[in-house]
């Protein structure tokens, strides 16, 4: 068991680029419930099921972060509740394609796990789609990789 196809999850969820962020957030919740794990990133596919991006929790949080927080952060008279309401309101006009990461790093099913480990560390990524041609075969999560390696270390 040493390649992407051995460790990848084949039960994965996807988003569409024209989905609203509100619907994407619902999809995150459903994916977490279905996969029985906290899902923090979902692949985005076009009409032909080709991978066109990845939407992560970080992308959404980045957009929610107030633009001038470096100024607000030094003040004690700010209504944080109001800031959060405004941020959520702004999110309503945004779609998945607007804030997703379009350049997704992928591997083939035959990629060695140590290569994937190196990729995750170098590129600061926590999940890597496994793609063969234009078809998505699965996804490798950093947690799966960690627990797999942990099992080998302790066996």
């Amino acid at each position, binding site marked *: 068991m040493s390649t992407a196809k051995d460790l990848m999850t084949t039960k994965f969820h996807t988003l569409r680029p*024209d989905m609203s962020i509100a619907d994407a957030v619902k999809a995150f919740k459903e994916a977490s419930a279905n996969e029985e794990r906290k899902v923090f990133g979902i692949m985005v596919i076009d009409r032909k099921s080709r991978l066109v991006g990845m939407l992560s929790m970080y992308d959404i949080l980045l957009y929610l972060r107030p633009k001038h927080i470096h*100024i607000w952060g030094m003040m004690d008279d700010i209504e944080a509740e109001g800031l959060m309401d*405004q941020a959520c309101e702004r999110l309503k006009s945004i779609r998945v394609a*607007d804030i997703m990461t379009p350049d997704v790093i992928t591997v083939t099913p035959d990629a060695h796990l140590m290569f994937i480990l190196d990729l995750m560390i170098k590129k600061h990524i926590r999940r890597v789609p496994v793609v063969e041609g234009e078809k998505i075969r699965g996804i490798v999560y950093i947690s799966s990789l960690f627990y797999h390696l942990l099992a080998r270390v302790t066996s």
Partner: protein
Amino acid sequence: MKQNVLKGLCVKDAMRRQVLQLPESAPIEKNINLLIKYKVNALLLAAENNIPTGVVSKTDIMSAYYASLPIESPAKDIMSSPPLFCGEADSLESALDKMRAEGVHRLYACEGASQSVAGILAYPDIVGLLYLYCHKCEYSLLNRSGKKLENDEVSRFRVKDVMTPAVRSFHENDSLLTIMEGLSAYRFGAVLVTDENDRATGVVSKTDLILAYMHGVSPHVAARTVMTSPVLSCEETEFLEGAIRTMIFSEVHRLFVHRGDSPNMVGVFSLSDAARLRSGSCQACVSSRIKVDQHD
């Protein structure tokens, strides 16, 4: 030279260190993605050798939308070139002078004598810095918490002293093409949208337009389909401190200004107006009663 808050400050004090850069071959849609995600107004573009070659702003992208350029086109086709630079050790005053002389809203700051880009200086950052000084100042209305100062005779700027006293508005049935022509002709970042009764019902900004481009909305649709509503406004006698606070809080670059209870807008107050004022929000700094180094 008049004393003002910016005296003694350099570009390094106000610039943002996160400079977003893309290859000049990157498609326009990828540029929009970064502009929206990071809430910035422009991106630096670089050639294959990583040398900066141009800047793509929301205005450039709006022009591409107007010209019905395919969204997959490379940003190189629409960028403004070359990018304009300043030194990170240059005075903020000279950088503002350069921005005004060149008619640009941002400068890229280089580290020392090198061509290495260390940061970006834009109007909102300068206003943010001014606001921070005002907020810490003992004369500030925002920082007072009810206590009364012995000397409260400071002459404060009000919105009407600084605003542009004219509003260009469009009808909500006007097409996005008409709106874009107006934005381009008058060099505005956003325009007011009104209904049949001349009541202000929304605002169409360049951000709304580049999102419409990204979402595949036809530029022939009516303004009301993409406008942001309601209109953010302030009263013309409001103190500058309060208006700047609203703009920064709401992440907008301008507030429309009304007089008294009348719903008619009589002016526009923008972040660049506030930055050009250079002296914070009251006359205290101008008359040198407060020095910058006392604000710590």
